[in-house]
């Protein structure tokens, strides 16, 4: 996917004015967080499970090389192949080679964010192989030549009419405003494609070192048809997804669905271990796992180490006020929201993604809901520091900070200034207690009001308190 992260600010500005998008985001803000809250409520051990999951992920990362080698040898034992890809390009080449070996014309695809990272679809198409996305959301996006704006609900930025429109155009059937009719249409369109495909490509949510199994978690069943029907199944996945045992995988599964959609359990949790066995009447004859690095191994031991705990549940973006206002596309690359603001600069470079770690209110909600307790605000702050040290932050920010630093080092002057600006803001706000427009800050006040400050500055209140006035 084309990188549009440098234009975050323009993207966000446009997004805030897009009515359709704002309608869709309104639903998201009401939907996911509420469902998650109910699921968490029903599982009294939920927060203890989070502690265990964090600790287990830390243990895995400490021993990542050993677990990966173990996983590899188990896949081989069960008759499968493991390929290691340092970069996205490496991964694409490996997959194309496998497709060529079996003379593939079409491949079906289950949802995989790693394949978005590597631009797999474009690559296959450029090499004469037709990829068909089968997850309903991804299918809609592929028809529209669009990209996911959310890691588990890829088409969340679209409304019913957008889907109806594109289905009418591509399927040649009458338009409908009934989601059930549209889904039925997609089901019928894709049925024969599942059967006709030469290769099925899926992602993986976890890799089990004990057994050499990969697991996918889906509600639609598209991933299962994708991996069961074609002769060859390729799993494209990344190195941090390995877990030790089935019991360990279970710990993460208990957290994943609840954090993501608020479901007790996702409909289909499917383990794949090697190709079809003797006597099996169906299932793939070849089983390949492509382990993608793409910058992850460099995160090990770095200040971003903890990000490798991420299980891609999407809770952080579902609860993020910034994501909830501008949607996923504004972030300009594969991973949006708080997790994307940490990952994207690592994967495409801080020069291009510097805006993202700054697109945060630091409200801390993301860390509060993260099932593996990743300190996302802290990691975003690391990027801000990083950016500052590299002199990449915009001039306004550098001068602003320098100016603030000047006054902060001169307490008397600082107090006088803050008392004066407090008065100024209160005068602007009047009785309503909200500032509707502020000179030079229309970027803020065009879309929301600013509450007026309290009567007294913090320092004044502090002194009053010390003197026993309150």
């Amino acid at each position: 996917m084309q990188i549009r992260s440098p234009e975050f600010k323009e993207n966000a500005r446009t997004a805030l004015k897009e009515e359709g998008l704002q309608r869709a985001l309104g639903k998201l803000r009401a939907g996911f967080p509420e469902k998650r809250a109910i699921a968490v409520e029903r599982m009294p051990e939920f927060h203890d499970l989070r502690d265990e999951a964090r600790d287990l992920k830390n243990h895995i990362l400490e021993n990542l090389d050993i677990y990966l080698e173990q996983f590899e040898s188990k896949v081989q034992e069960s008759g499968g192949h493991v390929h290691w890809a340092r970069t996205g390009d490496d991964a694409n080449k490996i997959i194309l080679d496998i497709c060529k070996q079996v003379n593939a014309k079409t491949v079906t695809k289950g949802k995989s964010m790693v394949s978005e990272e590597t631009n797999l679809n474009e690559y296959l198409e450029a090499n004469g192989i037709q990829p068909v996305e089968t997850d309903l959301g991804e299918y809609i996006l592929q028809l529209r030549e669009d990209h996911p704006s959310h890691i588990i609900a890829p088409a969340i930025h679209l409304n019913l009419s957008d889907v109806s429109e594109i289905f009418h155009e591509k399927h040649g059937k009458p338009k409908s405003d009934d989601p059930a009719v549209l889904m039925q249409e997609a089901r019928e369109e894709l049925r024969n494609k599942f059967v006709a495909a030469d290769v099925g490509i899926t992602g993986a949510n976890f890799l089990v070192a004990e057994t050499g199994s990969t697991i996918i978690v889906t509600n639609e069943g598209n991933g299962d048809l994708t991996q069961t029907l074609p002769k060859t199944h390729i799993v494209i996945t990344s190195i941090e997804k390995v877990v030790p045992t089935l019991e360990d995988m279970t710990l993460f599964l208990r957290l994943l669905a609840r954090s993501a959609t608020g479901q007790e359990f996702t409909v289909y949790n499917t383990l794949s271990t090697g190709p079809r066995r003797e006597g099996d009447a169906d299932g793939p004859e070849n089983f390949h796992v492509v382990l993608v690095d793409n910058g992850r191994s460099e995160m090990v031991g770095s200040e971003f180490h903890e990000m490798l705990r991420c299980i891609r549940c999407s809770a952080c973006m579902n609860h993020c006020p910034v994501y909830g206002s501008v949607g996923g596309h504004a972030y300009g690359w594969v991973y949006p929201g708080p997790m994307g603001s940490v990952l994207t600069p690592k994967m495409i470079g801080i020069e291009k993604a510097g805006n993202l770690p700054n697109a945060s209110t630091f409200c801390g909600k993301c860390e509060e809901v993260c099932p593996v307790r990743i300190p996302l605000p802290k990691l975003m702050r690391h990027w801000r520091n990083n950016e500052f040290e590299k002199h990449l932050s915009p001039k306004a920010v550098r001068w602003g900070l320098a100016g603030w630093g000047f006054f902060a080092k001169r307490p008397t002057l600082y107090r006088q200034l803050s008392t004066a600006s407090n008065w100024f803001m209160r005068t602007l706000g009047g009785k309503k207690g909200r500032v509707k427009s502020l000179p030079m800050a229309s970027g803020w006040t065009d879309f929301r009001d600013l509450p007026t400050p309290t009567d007294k500055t913090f320092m004044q209140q502090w002194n009053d308190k010390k003197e026993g006035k309150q």
Partner: protein
Amino acid sequence: MSRAEILSNIRRGLGRGEASEAQRKAVFNRLNAKANNLIPKRSQLPHAEQVELFKSMAQEASAEIIELSSTADVPKTVTDWLQNNGIKELISSSDAELNELDWSPLGDIQRTQRVAMVGDMASITTSFAGIAETGTLMLHSRGESPTTLNFLPDVHLVVLKRSTIVGPYEDAWKKIRGTFGKSMPRTVNMITGPSRSADIEQTLQMGAHGPRTLVILLIND
């Protein structure tokens, strides 16, 4: 090439070379122990209550449950269900458990043992276990039970014996290891309710790509 680079990058990040013998041993001990992590209390119940929990969780996930007192009742019940829904063909797994039943109640309805194909309306399979915690069925691939039966037809009928219901997932993994030893079956399917999607305007719709209807025939053996 990539493999060596990735592994050495990881090791460099961890501030060490190849892991020491002691560290490897600790990892393998952990792998071999297959210890449980925290298991929620919800399903730690006497068996009869686990069965009740299974039923309510499966129904919550929109599965239909029909209780029967013996497998001998399966053909008649299935026939009624298919007739009520106007379905004329049943694709079946070839488990002995199903084959030894008297299927004459089916009458005109064809029972065929094969892999599933596009257009199939209904399939019937057995199951390996039921997991009470979330009302989840566990099935696995094998010669007698092609995996396509679980995903392609519109309706999936599953025979589940009450005695195979366990509390948490962990107990199902123990059963899998007990049956297969070290090598897993090609696929293990955990199924909780029928297929669904909320990808169109965040509105939940049943029957995306997998079965629209999941019927559990619970045998009170």
